[in-house]
C-alpha cells in the first residue's frame, strides 16, 4: 500500500479483536451507546410499530371497503395467500428482476468504468451524461420509455426498426419482464457506474504500469487487476441496489400493471393489489409479513457473503 508524501501513515484496516484493543490507545474506550443509541431507537420505533400493526392485521379479517367484515381470521389470510398461485410467481419474478438488474448494472458498470478510466476528450461531460438517468423520477422514466420510445406504433424504436426493414417489436407483450428489467437497469446503471468508476480511480498507477510492462492487454488488465480492486465497491453497490430492487413498483405499475397474466407481478405489486385495489388490509398484511421474512433472509445472505468484504 502506497504511502502519502509526509503526513500520516495509514494503518491497515482493523481486523482482529486483539488488534482493536491494542489500537484503542490511551484515550480509553468510547461510550458507543449514546452515539448509536438515537439511530437504533428511531429505527426501532419506525419498524416496530408498523410491524406490530402489520402482524396484528394479518391475523384479522379487515377490509377497509367492507367494514361489516371483521373478526379474528386465524391463519386464513396466510392460507389463502399460499394457495394463491400468484404468490409463488411473484416471488420468482422478484428474484429474477433483482438478479438481472444487479448483473446488468454491475457488469456494464464495471466495464464502462474501466472504459472511462482511459483518458479521452470531453470525459467530464460524458460522465455527467452517464449519471443523468438516476435523477429522473421512476414514474416519469417508465412513461417516457413506454410511450415515446417503446410503443410499437408511435415509438422511436419502432420507427428505427421499420427504417431498417424489420417489423416493430411489441416490447410489453412479447417480453414484458425483459422490458421492465431494461428500464430499471437504465435507471440504476448510473449509480453502479459512479461508484465503480471512482473506485477505479483510486487504483494505483504503479500497479497498472507494471502490468502493462509485463505485456497485459486491456482485457487481461480488466480481469486480473481492475475487477479484484473493485471488490469492495461492488459489495456496496450490490447491497444498496438489492434493497431498492426488492421493492420496485412504479415502473411495473405504469407500464404493464403486473401483466400480461402475472408475468411482471413482483411481491411489491402483489401487495399493492391486495392493499390498495382490494383494500383487503388483512391479506395485504399477511403478504407484507411474507415480504419481511423474505427480506430478512436476503439480508442475512447478503451480510454473510457480500458484506464480509467490507470487514463487518
Amino acid at each position, binding site marked *: 500500500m502506497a504511502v502519502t508524501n509526509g503526513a500520516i501513515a495509514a494503518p491497515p484496516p482493523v481486523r482482529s479483536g486483539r488488534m482493536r484493543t491494542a489500537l484503542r490507545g490511551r484515550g480509553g474506550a468510547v461510550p458507543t451507546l449514546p452515539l448509536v443509541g438515537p439511530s437504533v431507537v428511531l429505527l426501532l420505533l419506525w419498524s416496530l410499530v408498523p410491524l406490530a400493526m402489520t402482524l396484528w392485521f394479518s391475523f384479522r379479517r379487515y377490509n377497509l371497503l367492507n367494514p361489516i367484515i371483521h373478526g379474528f381470521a386465524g391463519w386464513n389470510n396466510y392460507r389463502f395467500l399460499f394457495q394463491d398461485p400468484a404468490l409463488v410467481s411473484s416471488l420468482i419474478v422478484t428474484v429474477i428482476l433483482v438478479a438481472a438488474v444487479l448483473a446488468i448494472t454491475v457488469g456494464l458498470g464495471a466495464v464502462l468504468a474501466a472504459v472511462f478510466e482511459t483518458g479521452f476528450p470531453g470525459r467530464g461531460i460524458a460522465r455527467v451524461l452517464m449519471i443523468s438517468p438516476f435523477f429522473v423520477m421512476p414514474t416519469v422514466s417508465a412513461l417516457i420509455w413506454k410511450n415515446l420510445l417503446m410503443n410499437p406504433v408511435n415509438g422511436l424504436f419502432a420507427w428505427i426498426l421499420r427504417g431498417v426493414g424489420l417489423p416493430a417489436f411489441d416490447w410489453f407483450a412479447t417480453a414484458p419482464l425483459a422490458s421492465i428489467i431494461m428500464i430499471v437497469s437504465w435507471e440504476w446503471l448510473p449509480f453502479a457506474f459512479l461508484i465503480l468508476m471512482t473506485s477505479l480511480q483510486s487504483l494505483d498507477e504503479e500497479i497498472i504500469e507494471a502490468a502493462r510492462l509485463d505485456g497485459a492487454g486491456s482485457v487481461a488488465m480488466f480481469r486480473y487487476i481492475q475487477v479484484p480492486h473493485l471488490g469492495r465497491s461492488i459489495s456496496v453497490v450490490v447491497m444498496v441496489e438489492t434493497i431498492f430492487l426488492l421493492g420496485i413498483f412504479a415502473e411495473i405499475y405504469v407500464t404493464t400493471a403486473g401483466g400480461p397474466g402475472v408475468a411482471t407481478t413482483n411481491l411489491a405489486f402483489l401487495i399493492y393489489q391486495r392493499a390498495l385495489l382490494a*383494500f383487503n388490509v388483512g391479506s395485504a398484511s399477511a403478504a407484507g409479513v411474507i415480504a419481511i421474512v423474505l427480506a430478512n433472509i436476503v439480508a442475512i445472505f447478503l451480510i454473510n457473503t457480500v458484506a464480509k468484504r467490507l470487514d463487518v
Partner: protein
Amino acid sequence: MRTWLRLATAAVFVICANAARAETITIATVNNNDMIVMQQLASHWEQQTGNKINWVVLEENVLRQRVTTDIATGGGQFDVMTIGSYEAPIWGKQKWLLPLDDFPKNYDYDDIFKSVRDALSSEGHLWAVPFYAESSFLMYRTDLFSKAGLTMPAQPTWTEVEGFARKLTDRAHQQYGICLRGKPGWGENMALIDTMVNTFGGRWFNDKWQPQLNTPPWHDAVTFYVNLLRAAGPPGASSNGFNENLALFSTGHCAMWIDATVAAGFVSDPKKSQVVGKVGFAPAPIAKVPNGNHWFWAWALAVPKSSHKAAVAKSFLQWATSADYLKLVAQTNGWVVVPPGTRKSIYDNPQYLAAAPFAKQVEHAIETADLAHPTAQPVPYTGIQYVAIPEFQAIGTTVGQLMAAALTGQSTVDQALAQAQTQVKSAMDQAGYTQ
C-alpha cells in the same frame, strides 16, 4: 368620540363576520380536461362567495387510491371528492358520504338525466352530483369507409364490425382495422370486455353470486375479442388503454375505435387530432342481445361525512354542476368543451348541437344505458362495465391481467378463463358472498 367608538365597533363586527364566513375547502379531483377547466373557472365562485379552494389534482388511479384511503379511515383531508359512479352507491351505502338531496329548487334535479341520477344513488338518496357522464360508442373513419365502399349500419353488429376491420387493415402502412383497449385494469380492458360479454348474453355472477366466467357467453366474447385484435388490431394492443388508443386514432392509424364518448371531443379538436372532419359515430356493436353493449360512467362530486365545512362544500357542488356553470364554460371556452352527459337542457340547446355534432349520439347512448339491467339474464348487481361491489377493483384487475395474457398468446382463452373463474371464486368466497 362615542360615534367614533360606535363606528369602530361596527367596523370590527363587519370584518369579523366576513372573516368568519371565508372558508378554505380542499377539493380532490382528476386531471381530466373538464376538471381542469373547472379549476380555472372556480375563481368565479371564489369571488362570489369569498371562500378559497385548495386544489389537489391527481391522475385517476392515484386519486382513487388516495381518496379511498382517506374516506375509509375517516382521514378528513378533503371537503369535496371527485368520485365515479362505481364508488358513489357503495360509499353512500356505507354512510361515508353526505346525502345531497337538499339543494334549492333552482338547482333543477329533473334536468339531470334520470339514468345518471340513478347511477349515483342508493337507498333512496343521491350521494354525488354528476360533473360529466359518458357512455361508449363506435367511432370510425368516414374517409376510409367511403374509399373502401363500406357503409356503417345504424346499429352495427360485432360480426359486421369484424368484417369491416379485416377489410380495412393494411399493416404495411400502419393502418389497423380496429383499435380496442387491451391494457389490464378493471376500468381499462375489462370495461370493454364486460360490454362484449353482456351483449354476447353473459354476466359476471348469477343471482347466487356464483361467478360465471366459465360459461359459453364469456368464451364466445373473449375468443371473438382476441381473434379480432390479433387479426385487425395494432401491435402492442395489450398495453393500450384509452390514451394510447386516442393517440393512435387521432394520428390516423385506426379505422375504427370503440371507446368512451368523451373521445369524440378530442378527435374533433383540430389542435389535437389529425382526423378532424373524417370521423363518424355509430352505436356500440351488439351481438346476441342488445343489453349492456355500451357502458356508463359518470364523474361526480361528493362531500365526505368527515368534512368540517359541509355547507361551503355543498355550495361549491351546486355551483359546479348547475346549468349556469355549463353556460359559463360555453362563454369562456366554447360550446364544444362543455362537460357532456349530465343535463338535458344543453342537449336541447341549438348552439351546443351546432358545436358538437356528435352530441345527439352521446345523449342517446347515455339515456339508453341501463345500469339496473345490464344483462339478458337477471343479476344481483348493478353496473354495466363493472360490478358495483367493493371487491370488483381487485377482481376486475386480476381478470384483466388474464385477458391480456390471452391476447398476447401467453395462454389460451380457455386457460385464461379457467384461471379467472378460480380466482374470482376464491375472492368471492373470502369476501363472504357465496352462500
